[in-house]
């Protein structure tokens, strides 16, 4: 018999593992289809629904108006200006942290990350307390100055997205090949020339990535424009006004789709660029040694101190205001706002914590399993599954939330029993932040060598045993990080949950918005402080646990 006959195709799956793997991969895809793609398809369909059947009438009604052009212009104006300012400021700050001998680096770094622990509209809140009509400045100086409007949005947005850009630049600037810098110096290049020819080009991918990340965050943010925007409306606030204010879902969906387009383009471009970026650090690379330079170090210290001062003062004033009797009229110390004698009381905070815990649990399983399957299984479903996993990055939170109402608030829908529960809000948060959680998990999984799996299977282990005995024990610190990530984002997010809350499922971040809207700035501040306190407490506990088990290198703040 000729031994080179092809293996009979039909007989291959004598081993059932490959079949099982494909089934698991398919099972993982189901919730993504239900909780990401289905609402999106629904919202898209709804945007074409008119009283006279399917058509473009909604789009025509929205886009034809002067007001819509204004909104688009406003959104882009705010977003582009904020992006430019943030990228420049954050680059400088990250440079100070990574490439100078500035003192107190860790403190500066920590302060820069504070906005991540706070509800996303805390900057606007602080700005109003400080520079609003009844703000500290107007009261003390007797001026009549107003921060509401364009500049209010830009300033609060810059503070809001600063840590995201800083983290990207910081990671990029931390990697450097000392040999390049030595060559540059030996060839006679001054520090400025070295910066232009070596430093800047080596961080170009971070520049592009952070530009798009910042752009996406700002154009989809609606907490800050709601609070400090005044008459200056943007697309995100308009979606909210149309849906909540006027119950006009069709127009809301149309504007949502309009918002989706630039975000999808930005995210797609960022992923594409990311794929083209290759490792700049080869095996022979030497870590950069930064040498002291008194002038440079002093300039950057002053610069960083200024930035930190801005971040601290905005957050600090919120904390301060929460402890005053009645800002800004009676400034004496008072704890009365922590009695939460507002409608619903303290319940929204408990709701937020419950949602955060559920999102952490569901998120770890969903993102962790998806990462495991796409990294290790090597089935035909790998790339479609990967795509599904990162699609949420391109969906504005408001659009996803709106999609949830439209898709699941229908008595016939199998998900309907979940509607109006904290659990559905948690699920919404999980899938809104799915892409980031998934990428954290899969990056760490990539670092676990494939040969562990191979060694395990040649020793006779099924993949289930490999997962239980090898992969999970190696992965758990990262999974703790993923859980903390989902918890943290669930506590502070506004945009995805704003459409899903009911009086009984009110969350703390939304309470801040509503109270702020009503002018109850002190109670709003107290809620913000509670949110920050919970997030910081969880971060500290997680850090201590990881450090106890010797995993200091796992970063929790993303």
């Amino acid at each position: 018999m000729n031994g080179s006959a092809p293996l009979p195709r039909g007989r291959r799956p004598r081993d059932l593992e490959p079949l099982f793997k494909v089934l698991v991969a398919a099972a993982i895809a189901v919730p993504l289809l239900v909780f990401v793609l289905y609402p999106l398809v629904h919202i898209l369909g709804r945007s074409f629904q008119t009283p006279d059947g399917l058509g473009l009438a909604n789009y025509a009604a929205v886009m034809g108006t002067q007001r819509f052009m204004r909104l688009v212009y406003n959104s882009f104006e705010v977003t582009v200006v904020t992006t430019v300012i943030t990228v420049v400021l954050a680059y400088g700050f990250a440079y100070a942290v990574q490439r100078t001998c500035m003192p107190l680096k860790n403190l500066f770094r920590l302060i820069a990350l504070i906005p991540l622990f706070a509800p996303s509209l805390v900057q606007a809140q602080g700005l109003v307390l400080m520079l609003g009509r009844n703000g500290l400045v107007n009261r003390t100086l007797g001026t009549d100055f107003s921060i509401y409007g364009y500049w209010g949005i830009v300033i609060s947005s810059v503070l809001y997205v600063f840590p995201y850009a800083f983290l990207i630049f910081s990671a990029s600037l931390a990697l450097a090949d000392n040999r390049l810098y030595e060559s540059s110096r030996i060839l006679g290049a001054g520090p400025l020339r070295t910066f232009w020819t070596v430093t800047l080009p080596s961080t170009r991918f971070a520049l592009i990535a952070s530009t798009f990340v910042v752009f996406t965050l700002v154009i989809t943010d609606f907490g800050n424009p709601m609070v400090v925007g005044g008459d200056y409306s943007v697309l995100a606030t308009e979606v909210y006004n149309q849906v909540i204010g006027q119950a006009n879902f069709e127009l809301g969906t149309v504007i949502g789709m309009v918002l989706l387009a630039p975000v999808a383009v930005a995210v797609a471009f960022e992923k594409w660029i990311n794929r083209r970026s290759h490792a700049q650090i080869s095996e022979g690379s030497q870590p950069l040694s930064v040498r002291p330079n008194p002038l440079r170090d002093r300039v950057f210290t002053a610069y960083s101190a200024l930035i930190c001062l801005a971040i601290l003062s905005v957050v600090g004033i919120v904390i301060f205001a929460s402890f005053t009797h009645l800002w800004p009229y009676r400034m004496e110390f008072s704890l009365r706002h922590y009695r939460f004698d507002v409608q619903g009381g303290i319940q929204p905070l408990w709701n937020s914590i419950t949602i955060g815990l559920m999102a952490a649990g569901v998120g770890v399983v969903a993102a962790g399993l998806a990462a495991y399957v796409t990294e290790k299984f090597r089935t035909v479903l790998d790339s479609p599954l990967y795509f599904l996993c990162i699609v949420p990055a391109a969906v504005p939170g408001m659009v996803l939330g709106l999609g949830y109402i439209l898709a699941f608030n229908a008595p016939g829908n199998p998900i309907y029993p979940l509607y109006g529960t904290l659990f559905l809000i948690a699920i919404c948060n999980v899938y809104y932040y799915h892409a980031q959680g998934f990428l954290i998990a899969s990056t760490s999984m990539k670092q676990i060598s494939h040969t562990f799996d191979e060694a395990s299977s040649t020793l006779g282990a099924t993949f289930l045993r490999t997962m239980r005995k090898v992969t999970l024990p190696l992965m758990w610190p990262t999974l703790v990080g993923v859980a903390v990530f989902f918890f943290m984002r669930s506590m502070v997010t506004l945009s995805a949950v704003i459409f899903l809350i009911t009086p009984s499922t009110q969350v703390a971040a939304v309470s801040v918005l509503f109270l702020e809207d009503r002018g109850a700035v002190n109670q709003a501040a107290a809620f913000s402080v509670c949110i920050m306190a919970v997030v910081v407490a969880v971060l500290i506990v997680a850090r201590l646990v990881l450090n106890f088990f010797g995993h200091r290198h796992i970063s929790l703040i993303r």
Partner: protein
Amino acid sequence: MTLDIQNVTKRFGELKALDDVSISIANGSLVCFLGPSGCGKTTLLRVVAGLELHDQGKLVLDGQDLSLVPARNRNFGVVFQSYSLFPNMTIAANVAYGLECRNWPRKEIALRVEEMLSLVHLNDQARKYPHQLSGGQQQRIALARALAPKPAVLLLDEPLSALDAKVREELRVEIRMLQQRLGITTIMVTHDQEEALTMADNVVVMRDGRVMQSGTPMELYRRPSNRFVAEFIGWMNIVPADMGLPFPENGRPAGSHPLVLGIRPEDIQLLAEQDALCLLQATVDQVTRLGNLTRVRLRISENGASSREVRIMAEIQGMGEGLEVGMNRCISVAGESVRVLEWR
């Protein structure tokens, strides 16, 4: 256990990583797959291990076709270049892993782990974690882990490449002794010809997914059947056949002429200019004295019909007294030590 690799072919897209490879591995022998990187040797090992699925051909172990058996059921022990000890387990737990997978009773596992660790002289390290051991120790543990479940065949994927020279030398001897003591059929992949020649019973030289030649180390050295093997194993002078050097007639295909000859440096004799045995006149270009032997590079000034310049390396015993650059010397070689590498 006799392992037969029959007509195995493996493609990665357009690339043929293995092209109709057939190798027979005798029970208890150590076979080396040797070749430059990208020659398919590691792919072949992975196919044998069950980590890659081949497209065509058969893997037969003692008469049973293994082609469809997944890696975890093949009962082959594999040692990887990167050690791949599980970092979250102690040394003892690593060695016990394969036994737990086979549901051995707890007591027997403990005994076997003890036995395996003493086999590699690392009993005292049982409670440590892999990162606390040196590279050489880790690789010995990896060997113990692979051998613990009494595998049918032992597969070693460049097991020594990540180690420094001295440890490599030690482990070479240790692996070989262990393999012979246990009498386990073993395949080792390497790109290091010295490793292959010193350890293996049989060497399979591969290139571009094909077997170039297989045989005992000395067969490959003395009788390379083509230019690639001649140059890959040791050093061989490759010269045109029309310079007037003798060659053996055996194995000559009917009606053909030799095209390329190969001569080992140690088979070349350097004689005084007027010697009666003189075959070719040459000029000394370079003399490198290594103490016990001397390497002489020569340029052949008079090369028969062709006018190409040919250089030859000769190795002579001793210090090569009296040899100087620029001298004329006479080259002689015995016909039976010349290999014809290409016929026309």
